[in-house]
């Protein structure tokens, strides 16, 4: 087997949450790390052409990112995230991601896929498997664990504006302009600031306890908690939930949100994004949502309205 010097990380899915940590981890082990560029129309189109139709668009586009990288790296880093916390799982499509990549893309260099499963294992298991798969004989495990434990940024503001809407959804939709069809840019272009955040443990547990049963998916918990906690936040004038059309978990969660929370408190809208190439429908919905939000203002308590 060719020795691995240069490792590629596809800029999709969990890269948008853990990418910086992965890069630092691999660099600390002496590897050269390259990432695919931000999603482009051509990466998306290649991804769609490599996929079977049942996959959701983020997974399809991920394949496009792997395809861009495959000829310029010795290995591709696609960790298998099964569970990142006790009592919750990732979507099955994440769990099977490395296998789907291998099945869909020909002539692919080795896929390095250490398992992250905190439901049954520990971060140490992940590190051990990573080192083994990379034939890395001289690990500084303390340093590796330190890097993996680094905090991720939790609050993000996009653009400027006198009023702010919360954007919730999977990070790989929120942080990828091609995936979200420029939704956030479009919100900004209307003079509105967008805010995305990862809710803290306390409000997550509080929200989960208020439901008939805890949400099963980690990222789903974030979305549900974000909506719930922002309904009462007076600095926020509306909530836009970006949803991917073929997302299995979200098809439940959008319904759960509608049924469980008092959405009359604040303008709320779920926007479903699919493979349409035109963004007219998306713009119509965002414009109408902002029109509604501004007109509703005096009727509601937020922002010190009359």
């Amino acid at each position, binding site marked *: 087997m060719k020795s691995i010097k240069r490792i590629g990380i596809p800029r999709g899915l969990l890269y948008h949450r853990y990418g910086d940590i992965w890069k630092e981890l691999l660099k600390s082990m002496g590897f050269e790390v390259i990432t695919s*560029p931000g999603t*482009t*129309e*051509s*990466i998306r189109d290649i991804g769609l052409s490599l996929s079977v139709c049942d996959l959701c668009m983020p997974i399809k586009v991920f394949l496009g990112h792997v395809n861009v990288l495959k000829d310029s790296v010795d290995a591709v880093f696609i960790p298998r995230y099964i569970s990142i916390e006790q009592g919750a799982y990732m979507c099955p499509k994440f769990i099977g991601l490395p296998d789907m990549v291998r099945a869909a893309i020909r002539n692919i260099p080795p896929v390095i896929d250490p398992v992250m499963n905190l439901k049954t294992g520990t971060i140490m298991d992940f590190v051990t498997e990573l080192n083994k798969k990379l034939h890395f004989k001289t690990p500084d495990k303390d340093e590796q664990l330190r890097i993996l434990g680094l905090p991720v940024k939790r609050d993000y503001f996009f653009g400027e504006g006198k009023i702010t809407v919360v954007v919730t959804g999977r990070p790989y939709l929120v942080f990828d302009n*091609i995936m979200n069809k*420029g939704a956030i*840019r479009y919100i900004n272009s*209307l003079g509105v600031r967008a805010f995305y955040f990862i809710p803290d443990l306390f409000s997550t547990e509080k929200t989960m306890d208020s439901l008939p049963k805890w949400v099963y998916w980690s990222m789903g918990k974030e979305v549900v908690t974000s909506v719930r906690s922002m309904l009462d936040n007076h600095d926020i004038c509306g909530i836009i939930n970006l949803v991917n*059309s073929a997302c299995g978990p979200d098809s439940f969660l959008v319904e759960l949100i*509608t*049924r469980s929370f008092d*959405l*009359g408190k604040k*303008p709320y809208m779920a926007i*479903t994004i*699919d493979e*349409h*190439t035109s963004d*007219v*429908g998306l*713009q*119509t*919905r965002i*414009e*109408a*949502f902002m*029109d*509604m939000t501004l*007109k*509703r203002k005096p*009727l509601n308590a937020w922002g010190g309205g009359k």
Partner: protein
Amino acid sequence: MLEGFLGIDVGSVTTKLALIDKNDDVIWSTYRKTKGQPIRVLQSALRDLSRALNPVILGLGTTGSGRRLASYLAGADIVKNEITAHAVASIETVPEVRTIMEIGGQDSKLIIIRDGVVIDFSMNTVCAAGTGSFLEHQASRLGLSVEELGGYAISSTKPTRIAGRCTVFAESDMVHKQQMGHEIEDIVSGLCDALCRNYLSNLARGKELRDPVIFQGGVAANEGIKSSFERELNKEIIIPEHFNIMGAIGAAMLARELSPKETRFRGFSIAHQQLTTSSFYCNDCHNSCGIIEIRDGENIIARWGDSCSKWSAEFEKVSN
């Protein structure tokens, strides 16, 4: 000289124009098929308006999925999304309205109003099942025109149950029901019920539909759908006089509200220009934006579609 405010609603299937006076009364209107040629249809509609009344346009509003195109072409003072435009027109027509159902060619909308303000809305998601295109397709498959469907539907006393979740399923379901020997009136009536169930389960889930309920959009011409909704909701459904041009009326009202000192309307001469559109992909970066141009002969009069404004910068931007 006749003066008025003009609203243009370029939808996916039809193009609507409405001219209103300062009291929001409709003076002139037209409703015609877009036939995939929005520019030509718009030009011919404007020609007809100028021939019929030759009015002075005090302000122009555009709406519909082709609102930007219409604005670039005709010079709009205000460009507004369909939800807001429909709501504005409905509230003016029926001030106490609390629910607006709108079904057009490829969109369906539900708008919830309280005290004259939009407080919630929903639109169909990524699929056009249960909209006008679906009805039209099924009508043509049955050898009927879409206008005939309503009459057939209300003459049925025992609607056939049709799956309306998806156009493709509905079609195969209808074929089977025909082969089983169901009468065409019952099938058409069942189709209306299916569309109505589809609409309610997609858009109205979790929402409270309070009286008065207005039903508008091209599909409201179909009495079969209206009676399906009345049965399903057990409510009286109001169909406004101008049900199929409400978006255009709303756009005109928004222009009237704005009452610009000087309109940006380019004048009726645009109806006689030799306008052509062309498009190309800019490959200067990986985004590969699709750029669209409108030309009058050799002259480029509008260009848009780029995300970096490299191509559109020299052309006037239209605000929302």
